[in-house]
């Protein structure tokens, strides 16, 4: 009797996990960014994301190289330093059926790209925007970034005498409706946040502390694996329930609350009495302020609000993507021009 090969596992689109893979990474061994890429691959597979309707966009830096390392069957655009948000804005307006996944870094998003970051959030461009945050410029060999903590020491740059810019804080001030912080060393939480973020109506910001093993993983670094593992404080517990999924686990009444996402999925918040309620903007602001003052490493879903319409909803776009409109829809008639000439 022939040995039966175990069936290859496929998702609802008939794709294997391998179909969501990218090219081999060229980042340093152990880089937090590679771990995040793996989470993206798993989540895309689990959520049955159609790669032909996903775009991977990035700016410049180590983090921005990673879109080449996941989901080969999706179009990717590794653009300009700090200017990915504008490029993504144009792409999702050109084709409203696209799901945009942006990967940025702390230099790309918080230094050169802070302006575009804020305006992307202000416009509520529908996309997931991941900041792979390591507090250091890797490709240029170890300068401080704007998210480096006060009094940090780096071999290249010495002591950091300036306070950090907080990614989540900036997003909240700009009225972002989905803000999460996580740690590359906490794969379970990264995946949960990613799944929920991909279902969000507008811009979802994920600030993921992602240690730089080469320049900023030493013992007294606040962006190291060891520091993250020792100091991570999870402020909110939640689960993601996909639209088609049956809700099977029951919690005691009064201990959970569901936020219905734009695509019909749910974010189920748990243990509301004990922890931070991410539906409360004031509470989110307070939590971030306190963490900033005490230099605490808080993670989890910080803020969620599905009410603000996304840019693609405001723009009165037709059902057919702008990019695919036929000429008869985009070139007015000869008579229309004659009429304009009459009126001049």
């Amino acid at each position, binding site marked *: 009797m022939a040995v039966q090969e175990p069936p290859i596992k496929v998702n609802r689109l008939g794709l294997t996990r391998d179909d969501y893979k990218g090219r081999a990474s060229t980042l340093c061994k152990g880089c937090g960014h590679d771990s995040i890429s793996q989470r993206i691959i798993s989540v895309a597979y689990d959520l049955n994301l159609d790669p032909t309707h996903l775009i991977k966009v990035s700016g410049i830096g180590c983090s921005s190289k990673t879109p080449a390392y996941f989901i080969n069957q999706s179009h990717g655009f590794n653009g300009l330093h700090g200017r990915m948000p*504008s490029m993504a804005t*144009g792409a999702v307006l*050109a084709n409203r059926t696209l799901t945009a996944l942006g990967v940025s870094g702390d230099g790309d998003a918080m230094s050169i790209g802070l302006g575009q970051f804020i305006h992307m959030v202000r416009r509520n461009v529908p996309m997931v925007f991941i900041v792979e945050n390591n507090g250091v410029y890797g490709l240029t060999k170890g300068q401080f970034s704007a998210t480096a903590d006060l009094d940090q020491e780096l071999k290249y740059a010495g002591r950091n005498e300036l306070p950090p810019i907080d990614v989540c804080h900036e997003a909240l001030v700009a009225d972002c409706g989905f803000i999460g912080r996580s740690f590359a060393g906490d794969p379970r939480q990264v995946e949960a946040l990613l799944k929920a973020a991909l279902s969000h109506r507008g811009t979802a910001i994920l600030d993921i502390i992602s240690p730089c093993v080469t320049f900023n993983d030493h013992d007294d670094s606040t962006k190291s694996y060891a520091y993250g593992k020792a100091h991570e404080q999870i402020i909110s517990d939640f689960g993601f329930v996909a639209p088609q999924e049956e809700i099977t686990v029951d919690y005691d009444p009064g201990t959970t609350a569901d936020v219905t996402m734009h695509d019909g999925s749910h974010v189920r918040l748990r243990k509301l009495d004990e922890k931070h309620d991410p539906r409360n903007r004031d509470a989110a602001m307070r939590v971030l302020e306190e963490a900033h003052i005490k230099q605490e490493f808080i993670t989890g879903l910080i803020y969620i609000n599905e009410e603000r319409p996304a840019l693609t909803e405001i723009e009165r*776009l037709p059902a057919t993507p702008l990019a695919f409109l036929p000429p008869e829809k985009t*070139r007015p008639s000869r008579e229309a021009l004659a009429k304009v000439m009459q009126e001049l």
Partner: protein
Amino acid sequence: MGTSTQARPTAHDAFGSPVGVNNFSIIAATVNGSGSQTANNAIARALFKMGIPTTGKNLFPSNIQGLPTWYIIRISREGYIGRRENAEVLIAMNRATADEDISKVPSGGVVIYPTEWKLSESRDDVTYYALPVQQLAKASGASAKMLSYVANMAYVGALVTLLGIDINEIDAALMHHFGGKRKAVDLNMGVVKAAAEYCQQNITKRDPFKVERMNATAGKVLIDGNSAGGLGTCFGGFTFAAWYPITPSTSLVDALTDYAKELRVEPDGTHTYAIVQAEDEIAAIGMITGAGWAGARAMTSTSGPGISLMTEYAGLAYFTEIPVVIWDIMRMGPSTGLPTRVSQGDVLMVYFLGHGDTKQIVLLPSNMQECFACGWQSFDLAERLQTPVFVLSDLDLGMNTWMSDPLEYPDTPMDRGKVLSAAQLDAAKGFNRYEDVDGDGIGYRTVPGTESKYAAYFTRGSGHNKYAQYTERADEWEANLDRLHRKHEYARTIVPKPVIDEVAGATVGIIAYGSTDQSMPEARKFLADRGVKTSYMRIRALPTTAEIHDFIQRYPRLYVVENNYDGQMRKILQMEVPERAKDLVQISKCDGLPLSSEWIATSILKKESK
């Protein structure tokens, strides 16, 4: 109004032609923000509707209210539209500039000024007419807030009587201006009529300037280049625009927005386009680059400082081969420069925009029809060539009112370029994004959302090979640049060819482009009258086409006429045709004004007389 027996001698323009009936210029000197544009446009439109060839030029400051502004209306029975050095009829409404304005009136000219100034009429070679502007405005019953606006109508009324403008055409022009709002028109017309009557009763005409009905504007339209460009963009099937406000390009997007709302809305209320006001020019070009990459017909409009900010993305779009259209309505630089004055100063910068060996495609419209045509041709070229296409208009073309033949409907169907469908991809089982399959240097592309597992490729500004894979290999890098060069050479064969007017026996070739063309017919006639026969080539695009090279080879002496300090097009032509470099002579001027016919003609004549 009586007619004096002591008429002054007839004035002549710089070309020696008598000025008088349907051949002179009016200059209105006013204060910015006082509403004088309504008055000036009404005069220009009324003259145009009287069948008289008319052009209007606004010389305005970078200011919202208070600084001096001038509006020049040229009336030319011959149909000349270029700027003249002199304006015979001065409407002096700005006390601050009056002395200098009056000193510039040519001998035999006219000065109309407010009686309230109690001006000493010190020149005896010009005719003064005092007009009780404030009194006429107050008599209209206009509110204190509206008073300064309607006061401008006093000079409109004065010209009705003094020049013989048909008052009904003024009424119709104001109806056009106020979108048919009779009440607003009546308030203004009250002052026009009162002023016209005042002049009839109190002023004796002592000058030769008059207008008479003609039939030279039938079938023509009045439009500005930014409106024509916006309209052309709309008919070009744009689906995405992003922009940041900057003078003098803002009115292009304003026109586009207005026309799109009229022409590009579906019955269900959805728009077949999106227009986003970006936070700066970097974001504007970033957005159109993303949109162009994703398959939209995407454009932006800006001016010199905005182009500077767009440089990095322009290089990225060039190298990643993404179609985008960028309008540069040129103004005077360097830096903030003279933001409301014209120049052709961005030619060199834009042609080479980007770091590394970048060569961009540049279109150079010269008139309203071409501003419109560039609106749609730019998209066809950008998508065919998979590259940015720049349209270099300027403030004079863009913001001034021009008489034009009606704009012509696109005569070719849209060219969306080499884009592969899902079916084509599935059949071929893949594609190589940057492979030169057809020998024209242009690869095939796909856009996101194409439902084939073979559709995706990775776009990057870093080194890539023909498979769109990252590479730092010397041979692959060079092969890619070679292909981009082939594409540029192919572009030479499909960009708009120059317009050439060859004259038998001419030994002089004149080369110009853009708004400078307006003064050429008159300048060439001046030269021909003095025995200098000229052939003329108007360049319409870069890179240079074979026709441009041939023309340059045919003439012993070539004058490159342009509105910038360094002679930028001349430098490009010298690079393109190095063996004729010393025969390409620079005729350039850069003072914030459109080049006048007189200046061009006399500058060339001076060189020819040597």
